[in-house]
């Protein structure tokens, strides 16, 4: 088994090019801030950023000027309020105008599914009576060939790069995650290139002990990055908690462009990599975010010889 291990720096340098469409997925959980920060540090430009919920990571990336366009379905700081940097970009063109392409959650999910399954469209019951199709010409309707019924469709989405965070993978990129699965699998299969970022690198034997837990096979993975705490202030089920105080604090910081700049200087440009970021966060914070234990009951797959 040949290794796909790369540093985050090398993975981003190799696979995220200026003008690329990039999906960093993860629904509240598993959001790879480490990858987003490295993209900012490498001053990538003109990216199309794709995410169901842009969240604080895309707020930071938009503020840093890496994005030309945003494809999304929910533009909020979850449980807190607005994403002020993205709002400034949309409402005032600061730091630069931001093109948007907007769906509902199910529409975004469907786009990834169609992209992963090489389908020309994904049908869903949505958008009837909504103004969304009026502002997004990609949302269309088709007639069922079995009756009068019409159904909405969305086109496939194939990001140039999808970045997925998870608990563990082997060096070939066979990746297991548990907790909120979100659209991690679909976004990975839909992508032209896949970077997997994990808390732990494990032996192939660990993967093979529970094959139903493998959502993303090494087959579709280009790079594996070992990056503990790579999702902070988002979280990784069983590894660390969501840093809710940070999400609340970002609501304040992000209202002021200067404070955002200062924050980026200190926490992104000012650190070399995620390891330095984690040291800077400090042991007390990491300790505060450490959950108790709640182990799955193991299951017997049986040895068949």
């Amino acid at each position, binding site marked *: 088994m040949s290794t796909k291990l790369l540093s985050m720096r090398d993975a981003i340098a190799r696979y995220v090019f200026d003008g690329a469409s990039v999906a960093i997925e993860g629904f509240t*959980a598993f959001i790879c801030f480490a990858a987003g920060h490295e993209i900012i540090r490498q001053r990538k430009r003109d990216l199309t950023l794709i995410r169901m919920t842009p969240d604080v990571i895309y707020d930071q990336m938009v503020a840093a000027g890496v994005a030309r366009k945003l494809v999304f379905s*929910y533009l909020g700081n979850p449980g807190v309020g607005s994403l002020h940097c993205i709002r400034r970009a*949309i409402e005032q063109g600061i730091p630069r105008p931001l093109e948007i392409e907007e769906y509902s959650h199910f529409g975004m999910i469907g786009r990834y599914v169609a992209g992963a399954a090489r389908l020309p469209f994904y049908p869903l019951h949505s958008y009837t009576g909504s*103004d969304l199709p009026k502002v997004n010409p990609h949302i269309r309707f088709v007639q069922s060939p079995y009756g009068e019924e019409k159904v909405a469709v969305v086109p496939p989405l194939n990001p140039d790069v999808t970045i997925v965070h998870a608990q563990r993978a082997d060096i070939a990129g066979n990746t297991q995650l548990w907790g909120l699965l979100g659209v991690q699998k679909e976004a990975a299969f839909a992508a032209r290139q896949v970077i997997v970022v994990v808390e732990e690198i494990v032996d192939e034997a660990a993967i093979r002990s529970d094959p139903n837990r493998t959502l993303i096979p090494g087959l579709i993975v280009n790079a594996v990055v070992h990056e503990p705490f790579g999702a902070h202030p988002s979280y990784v089920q069983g590894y660390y908690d969501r840093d809710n105080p940070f999400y609340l604090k970002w609501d304040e910081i992000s209202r002021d462009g200067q404070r955002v700049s200062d924050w980026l200087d200190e926490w992104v440009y000012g650190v070399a990599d995620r390891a330095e970021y984690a040291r800077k966060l400090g042991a007390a914070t990491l300790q505060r975010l450490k959950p108790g234990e709640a182990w799955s009951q193991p299951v017997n797959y049986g040895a068949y010889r």
Partner: protein
Amino acid sequence: MNAQATSFTASEMMIVTAARALAGAHTVFVGVGLPNIACNLARRTVVPDLELIYEAGAYGASPARLPLSIGDPALVSGSIAVMSQADLFSFYLQGGRVEVGFLGGAQIDRYGNLNTTVISDYTTPSVRLPGSGGACEIAIHAQRLLYIMRLSKRAFVERLDFTTSPGYLSGGDARRRLNMPGGGPHRVITDKALFDFETPTREMRLASLYPGVSVEEVLAHIGWPIARAETLQVNEPPTDEELRCIREELDPLGLYRL
């Protein structure tokens, strides 16, 4: 219900009213904030068997703490099933397995249509709101919809700036004509009164008042001449037990006391 003894806030009255509206329900699609507290209160009072479904992909969640976001890790550990969002939206929501959906928004009109997208124009908005998320699908598929919104003339408007999620559209049987499987808006729970849509035109209607609130106080916050039920009931105030649950168990920090 036992007698009301304590004073309470408008938010607490909203939470209690929302929880009571869940009586008899089996499954509810939970939003964060007030709906989240209301659903958890309902489980402790009127519907112990109520199963909570979160759009993040958790079914039968049993959170040990009140989650800040609908993707909180506490919704995962100890829940009955956690699945991909493709499965959640396809098989649970679109599959017709969700009974009650909770929604809220920046603007609502007389037919329960909802705006969570922009204030003013879409391409040059004065305020860019979060957008649909799963709201458009919840509005179409849930067997019945409960809205939770504070009364205000900016929110209860004659005409939406943008329709994100359909209520009864232009009223009457417009939903059915468009083959929408869900039942549409059922109640609007506000900080002053409760509204229903129990008329052939499916126009929002003042159904009952909270204790101490006058009809005029309500009408002053609604941007159109709203209909009202023939006899206006007054909602029961929160019981001691409901208030104890909220204050001691669900929101000990008082984040939603206001």
